[in-house]
């Protein structure tokens, strides 16, 4: 076990004992990935921030149910994913801007959430993804079944190891691969004209 893993386990144990500072350190370690995963699933920054915060609070409440402190990361991502997917399901009754809204009105996607901005990582092979294409891909991803979308987001976008994705999805590694494959295949049909 490397030093960082041992340090993380120590933080988890302290947090399990009710140490809020230790938990804050865990938040610092995982907040970027948590917000990013939530953002891929709910489609806008503000909701992603809220959903991921709720997930952290939920995680803190349920820390005593985490048997293996070494598995905190995947366990947390499972909570984040579930919170985000539940939020997506209940969003139809909410007025907040959403991925579906962006799909309905592509202009919405260009508008950053209040007080927050969307940063695009440059320096890639062809420059930033055009906004219109970004929206088309968001729309296509939104049509995938939850498990396929989650597998693709965690594995292909977030770069999580298949083993950890399997823990999040609570399935075997082979089924993670299968879900990623199915997601790619459906996207190939939906995005044919962009290939």
């Amino acid at each position, binding site marked *: 076990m490397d030093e960082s893993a041992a340090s993380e386990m120590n933080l988890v144990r302290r947090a399990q004992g009710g140490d*809020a*500072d230790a*938990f*804050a350190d865990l*938040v*610092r370690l995982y*907040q*970027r990935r948590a*917000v*990013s995963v939530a*953002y*891929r699933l709910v489609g806008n*920054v503000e909701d*992603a*921030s809220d959903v991921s*915060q709720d997930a*952290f*609070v939920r995680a*803190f*409440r349920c820390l005593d149910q985490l048997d293996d402190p070494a598995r905190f990361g995947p366990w947390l991502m499972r909570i984040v994913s579930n919170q985000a997917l539940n939020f997506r399901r209940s969003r139809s009754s909410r007025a907040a801007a959403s991925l579906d809204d962006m799909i309905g009105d592509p202009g919405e996607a260009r508008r950053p959430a209040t007080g*927050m*901005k*969307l*940063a*695009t*990582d440059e320096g*890639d092979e*062809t420059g*930033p*993804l055009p906004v219109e*294409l*970004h929206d088309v*891909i*968001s729309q296509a*991803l939104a049509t995938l079944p939850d*498990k396929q979308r989650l597998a*693709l*987001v965690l*594995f*292909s*976008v*977030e770069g999580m190891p*298949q083993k950890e994705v399997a823990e999040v999805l609570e*399935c075997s590694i*082979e*089924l993670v*691969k*299968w*879900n*990623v*494959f*199915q997601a*790619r*295949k459906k*996207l*190939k049909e939906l*995005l044919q004209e*962009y*290939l």
Partner: protein
Amino acid sequence: MTESDYNPNDPEFLASCALDEPLSGDAKAKLDEALDASNDVRSLGEQLGAIDRLVKWWGRRQPNIDWKDYTRLVKARVESIGEEDQLDAVDSLMSRWASSQPIIDERRFESAVMDRIGRDGFANVRRRIIFRIGASLAAAAAIAIVATGLFRSNPSDLRFVQVAIGPPGRAASTYGPSSALAVVSFDRTPPIRKITGRQSSLSFLAMGSSPLGGLMEESPPL
């Protein structure tokens, strides 16, 4: 296709897996065989690769938020969990309290309500009729007295005031001449079961001092 359709030997699946990691000897042999046999598999593999690049490109857009503020918010929420739990407990208690419903005999309840509506409604209608008739009579008499100069000093000049009660239109025409006539007319009392429907109305004729013949106008319903 769902998870139940999982087929580890599906050439298209192997082509997808090959994008992510080197295949094992057996899987690689199967894929190579499929690629040699069909251009479709090769084409699909290339398209899946293009999709993977597109998705990764899509994923480069990152939410840009104030991470320090984010950490502070989460920490504050975690530290106030005890308080939140207490509020949740109160909410839960209130919900349970509100969910307990009194058990009643609905048929008896409905019957009792309808009985009371009928009884009270009847009493109300009766009170209204008495009040309106009484008020109309009093008003008519008072006006007639003033108009005919009832209190003249000479008893021979005394005029009669006739007060008639009847339905609209009939009340005035069915009474003979007199010095003055105050006519009170009213519609029929509505059925008791339709209390909120038609209202009874009362009206009276304006009166004059000359013998009847030229009838006067009937006032609008009061």
